[in-house]
């Protein structure tokens, strides 16, 4: 039998998939013809999966420079009649927010789906954020799957629904959907390939005030129609239990936790359940039917009380006095779990808990002090470590000339280098969102009188770093901007970007260089450095900081993980460093205390290098005051 893959047209067969692969598969089954995205955990594998089969299935797939562009690319394709999608993480939707709100006014032609990957507990994000509020703000229907398999099916259906109503649809994934795994039954792959044709309709598509005022009531009407339809969609299911005193309303993934909790408590026949797959708009008829049948209800959902507040509003309108619980018993923060939902239901039903959660909590508290801290950190051989060390060394030299006690400010950004904020590097004073390192630097320059050295990565530079760079030139902000160019979007899995010379589907393309862009934008001090030549790098950064006016440094070195991979392919040996114990002063520990490289460890009181981790970058050898670190 031929091995099953993501592109196999084998309806009925089962395949073990990552949630993001299932989402991609859903789009493929629906006949998506264009997919655009910007990488961001937990969404990146969606476009990666589509790109990997794009040529074979005649799909256009691209990594866009940012989420706003990705959504605009998808919107245009939809207006040409193609099924199109954009995928991004929750905070990426903020970047795409502007065109998204307008898209709702003008509507869709070919099915248009925005996939947002929310990240409760912010496992790999700057913040938690509930995309359902963005959907509500824009009259955008949002589908929320309860499992990996449903994510695939919803994704496929979202295209059809979008076409049926001529309106963009959002599908909301969360970390435990996108990064969950499950067996999934494959559906048929649509072979339909449409030829794009842009039907001009200026009175609808040119959003001048006069036209927007005409579009708005049409948008509201479309949304009302969708509101009626959701009552019969299979994703919303009402199961009434005879004589139930409690009902559970569970949205998206929370439904799976609720289902398990109810079974764990043995209350299957005693609780009515409404499974919600469309939190916006809610299936009003089903909500009313449920609430009129029970005196008490518990709304189970992750993050904000979105469904809860709407259910309360529906109850008020329908004159139903059912007591509605939600965030009074479940946390607004972090992910839900079967355990948390079990506790809430047990409380409302006076049931005995299946396990003693109090004891488990006690065990957790007892164990916590024993555990060593193991935060994610910059890899051994990561060029960012060298760049960040050089930035701080240079900045401290300059700060001395500014005056006693002058402390430079280091605005940082989103990417692996964010990890430098912890000791010993402490190289990053503020990180809020993509591109903000340069943006904040502009403000700091006008608000303080200290050296300002901001850094961001190459992919981040192309994403949102260029407008604040231009701002610095235009408004004469005396700042130093450092692009940490490791030729990769490393944090999210090494996706290509405009600086790599390759597209999402592996085609060669123009390779853009941050230094060329900076020069073209009017930056007068632009230099490229190799961070592993530490002395030269530090001296050049010092010159940049001393330069009067905005300056830009490109610190260029390939990501250590890619470098190791390529060396392995070339069958090139990695030559690690080791510490000559005769020269090493045990108490010095400068290498450990200044760099925090995971390859430098203590063994029986001695400082040694773990040769299985060392990549041979040589940074530690350059800072060792005893010249005790040598290559083997």
């Amino acid at each position, binding site marked *: 039998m031929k*091995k099953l893959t993501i592109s196999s047209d084998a309806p009925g067969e*089962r*395949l*073990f998939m990552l949630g993001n692969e299932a989402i991609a598969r859903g789009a493929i089954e629906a006949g998506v013809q264009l997919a655009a995205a910007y990488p961001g*955990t*937990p969404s990146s594998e969606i476009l990666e999966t589509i790109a990997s089969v794009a040529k074979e299935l005649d799909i256009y797939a691209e990594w866009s420079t940012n989420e706003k562009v990705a959504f605009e690319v998808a919107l245009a394709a939809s207006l040409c009649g193609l099924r199109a999608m954009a995928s991004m993480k929750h905070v990426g939707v903020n970047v795409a927010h502007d065109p998204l709100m307008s898209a709702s006014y003008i509507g869709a032609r070919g099915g248009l789906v925005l996939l947002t990957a929310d990240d409760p507990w912010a*496992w*790999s994000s700057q913040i938690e954020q509930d995309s359902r509020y963005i959907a509500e703000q824009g009259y955008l229907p949002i589908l929320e799957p309860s*499992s*990996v398999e449903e994510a695939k099916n919803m994704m496929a259906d979202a295209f059809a629904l979008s076409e049926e109503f001529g309106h963009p649809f959002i599908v909301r994934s969360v970390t*435990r959907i996108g*990064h*969950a*795994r*499950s*067996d999934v039954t494959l559906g048929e792959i649509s072979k339909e390939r449409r030829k794009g044709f842009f039907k001009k309709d200026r009175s609808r598509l040119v959003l001048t005030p006069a036209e927007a005022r005409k579009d708005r009531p049409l948008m509201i009407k479309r949304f009302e129609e969708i509101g009626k339809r959701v009552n019969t969609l299979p994703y919303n299911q009402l199961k009434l239990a005879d004589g139930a005193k409690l009902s559970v309303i569970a949205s998206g*993934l929370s439904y*799976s*936790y609720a*289902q*398990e909790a109810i*079974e*764990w408590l043995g209350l299957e026949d005693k609780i009515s359940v409404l499974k919600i797959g469309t939190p916006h708009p809610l299936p009003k008829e089903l909500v009313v039917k449920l609430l009129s049948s029970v005196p008490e209800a518990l709304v189970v959902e992750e993050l904000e009380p979105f469904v809860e507040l709407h259910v309360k509003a529906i109850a008020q309108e329908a004159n139903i006095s059912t007591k509605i619980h939600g965030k009074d018993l479940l946390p607004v923060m972090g*992910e839900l*779990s*079967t*355990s948390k939902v*079990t506790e809430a239901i047990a409380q409302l039903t006076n049931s005995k808990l299946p*396990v003693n*959660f109090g004891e*488990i*909590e006690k*065990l*957790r508290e007892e*164990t916590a002090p*024993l*555990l*060593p*801290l*193991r*935060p*994610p*950190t*910059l*890899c051994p051989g990561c060029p960012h470590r060298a760049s960040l060390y050089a930035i701080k060394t240079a900045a401290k030299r300059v700060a001395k000339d500014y005056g006693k006690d002058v402390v430079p400010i280091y605005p940082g950004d989103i990417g692996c280098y964010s*990890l430098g904020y912890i000791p*010993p590097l402490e190289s990053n004073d503020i990180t809020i969102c993509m591109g903000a390192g340069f943006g904040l630097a502009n403000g700091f320059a006008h608000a303080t009188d200290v050296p300002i050295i901001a850094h961001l990565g190459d992919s981040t530079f192309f994403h949102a770093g260029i407008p604040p760079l231009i701002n610095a030139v235009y408004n004469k902000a005396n700042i130093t901007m450092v692009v940490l160019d490791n030729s990769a979007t490393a*944090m999210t899995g090494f996706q290509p970007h405009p600086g790599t010379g390759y597209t999402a589907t592996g085609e060669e393309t123009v390779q853009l260089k941050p230094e060329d862009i900076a020069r073209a934008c009017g930056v007068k001090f632009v230099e490229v450095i190799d961070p592993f030549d530490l002395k030269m790098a530090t001296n050049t950064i010092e010159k940049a900081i001393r330069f009067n006016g905005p300056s830009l440094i490109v610190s260029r070195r390939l990501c250590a*993980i890619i470098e190791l991979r390529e060396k392995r392919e070339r069958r090139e040996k990695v030559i690690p460093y080791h510490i000559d114990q005769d020269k090493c002063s045990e108490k010095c*520990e400068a290498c*450990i*205390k200044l760099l*925090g*490289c*995971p390859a*430098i*460890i*203590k063994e029986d009181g001695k*400082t040694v290098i773990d040769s*299985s981790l060392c990549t041979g970058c040589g940074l530690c050898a350059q800072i060792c005051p005893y010249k005790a670190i040598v290559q083997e």
Partner: protein
Amino acid sequence: MIKELNILISGVGGQGVILMSELLGNSAVKDGVRIRGSELLGMAVRGGSVFSTIRMGSDVYGPLTPLGKCDILVGMEPSEALRNITYLSKSSLIILNTAIIVPFTVPLGQSKYPSLEVVQEKLESASGKIVKLDANQIARGTGNLLTANIVMLGALFGTELLPIKIETIKESITERFPDKLVPVNIKAFDLGYQTCQQALK
């Protein structure tokens, strides 16, 4: 079909935890077993803690194992096994790789690594049974240290608690690795399997 079997694999980024989950998942699907799971991707690559849940059976819906409901904890590293102690119950079985990985925060003086005795004592008191093996040592014996995760996978099958056939998991291993790496991984699997069987006798 079994109703519910909750496996938890914990370790450190780079130990091959995700690969183990993939092998288990592909094998479960081949043998017609319903499977759910989840793991932490992304930040975990950078040397952080990694945690993967694999759940099999007809009564499993959510991707995460509830607290106190883990049947088998596969601890790839002692302190990382301890980190997940709240998932255990008196009927849990632990398979523990005794080879430790000290995080960079220890030489920096930001935290301490607990003694192996304390870790084992804690885990023993919270579970039903513990099988200890030095998977790194066994892997080194096969000539390839990178097979430590497959040693542990073999040990997991050595419990004879999984609803997956040995031939099926070996088929998945064979499909997953390049031809020249298949024999060493099968050897690692067998050694892990035998070690666990002996320990359980």
